[in-house]
């Protein structure tokens, strides 16, 4: 669905993208990770046709971004709402711009209102909503026309638990219906819940891409055993369960606590950052 190859973008002295390559299939959720300045937002802006790359190529369903507008739903990193306009009026505007009319528009709005828990606030102006409600309104604006490609740039930044859960639910639902999703975030557990393919960006390029399990396979987990409530033994290992069995077989003192931690996305992220910094 989305194929980006060797994208290059420079802002003055800053190399925002430097050979950024990423593809996303229909129905796939790609969780795009990276520090601030890794190139995530620049990538989203290029795919949205807001800026042009200095080099490289992007196609959406085989077409350039300029020809695929309307197939794309974008929820930008920063809130982009009209404060004096209600939630319903936002959805009507973006729905109409995408070509929805009357019944189709009404049904799309009502469905999103339920899924994103907006029903109670549909006729309130967005300037008077909480941050989480504004985030959900912004996401709804991106989703109202059922785009085939969703670009969600940190959609849950600063959001409350209700907003985060609603967002994850709707992203899973849309991916289940066949939408390709690019989801940038700093909240790694969200990507685990979304069962997303992970892509890690650093210095304007993708340095790792794959299923979460694959990427975590070679990373060490940790076993921590406390003896007599005093002495603590910690073992870093790729197989924490086996290491625990081995450890318990060797000690002859009372074990007061056991902590087994499998490798997480945080570990992956830190490991890749260290590797590439070196």
């Amino acid at each position, binding site marked *: 669905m989305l194929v980006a190859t060797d994208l290059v973008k420079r*802002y003055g002295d800053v190399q925002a993208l430097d050979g950024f390559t990423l593809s996303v299939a229909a129905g796939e959720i790609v969780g795009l990770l990276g520090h601030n300045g890794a190139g995530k937002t620049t990538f989203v802006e290029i795919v*949205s*046709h*807001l*800026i042009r790359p200095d080099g490289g190529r992007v196609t959406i369903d085989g077409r350039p971004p300029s020809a695929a*507008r*309307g197939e*794309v739903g*974008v929820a*930008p990193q*920063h*809130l*982009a*709402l*009209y*404060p*004096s*306009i209600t939630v319903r*009026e936002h959805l*009507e*505007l*973006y729905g*109409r*711009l*995408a*070509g929805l*009319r009357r019944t189709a528009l009404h049904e799309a709005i009502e469905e999103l209102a339920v899924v994103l828990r907006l029903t109670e606030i549909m006729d309130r102006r967005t300037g008077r909503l909480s941050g989480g409600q504004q985030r959900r309104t912004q996401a709804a*604006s991106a989703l109202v026309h059922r785009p085939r490609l969703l670009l969600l740039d940190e959609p849950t930044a600063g959001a409350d638990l209700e907003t985060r859960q609603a967002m994850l639910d709707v992203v899973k639902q849309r991916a289940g219906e066949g939408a390709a999703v690019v989801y940038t975030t700093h909240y790694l557990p969200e990507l685990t819940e979304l069962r997303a393919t992970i892509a890690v960006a650093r210095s304007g390029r993708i340095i790792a891409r794959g299923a979460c399990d694959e990427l975590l396979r070679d990373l060490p987990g940790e076993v921590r055993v406390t003896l007599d409530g005093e002495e603590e033994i910690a073992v870093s290992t790729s197989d924490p369960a086996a290491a625990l069995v081995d450890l318990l077989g060797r000690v002859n003192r009372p074990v007061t606590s056991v902590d087994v931690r499998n490798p997480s996305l945080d570990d992956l992220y830190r490991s890749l950052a260290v590797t590439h910094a070196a």
Partner: protein
Amino acid sequence: MLLDPAPRRLGVLDALHRIGALARHNLIIRLRDPGQMISYVAMPMVLMLVLKPLYVRALDQGVAQIATGLMVMFSVFAISMAGNAILSERTWRTWDRLRVSRAPAFELLIGKTLPLFVVMIAQQAILIVYGCLAIGLPVPPSPPLVLLAIVIWAFALLSLGAVLATLVRSHGELSVISDVGALTLSSLGGALVPLSIMPGWAQAAAHVSPGYYALDMMQAAVRGDAAGVVPSAAVLLVLGLAAGAFAARRLARGWGRGGLL
């Protein structure tokens, strides 16, 4: 081979539908924050009443001077309305959100500016009608000519406002430039005091002010002098087209990440 006209017609209808949605949306925004609009209509109305006796005593065409002069002056102030409307899209970050939609740049621009254009035309038309009803401005012999002059002047103002919005970095900057600029340009153009009694340097400098051409065109239109309307209308049209093209180019490309205070 025959070409099927259906998709093309559908494309035009879709475009009209999108422009309609944008215009409706922008009209709602305007109507929910009507303060500027109201003050730029009410203030000249009050001033016309208060200043009329003075102008009638001082000038042969005192009523026409005060009615058209204040109309031009406060319509220049309305530049800030256009500027604010466009600058707000930038500060709210909504312009880029619209650019991602199916609507191409020209539809976004038309949808954005159409309600402003209507508001500006309404402001000027109301002031002319008020001039006739409240301070005795003679009813123009050719209302269509007056309407044409109003449309041309509104177009030029809208374009100038759009240019300002693409150049300034904050609402504060826009306010300073549009207010000081409006007062200077309209005064220099003869909106408050007729050019004939202004100092020589001011009479020479007046020709760089759009207010001068607007006033000249408007007074000719009110007299029903079609030939007198043409030269100034041409200058304002060229100015409006040039400014509009510049603003459209800037807006179509967006602002990127920089430029705001």
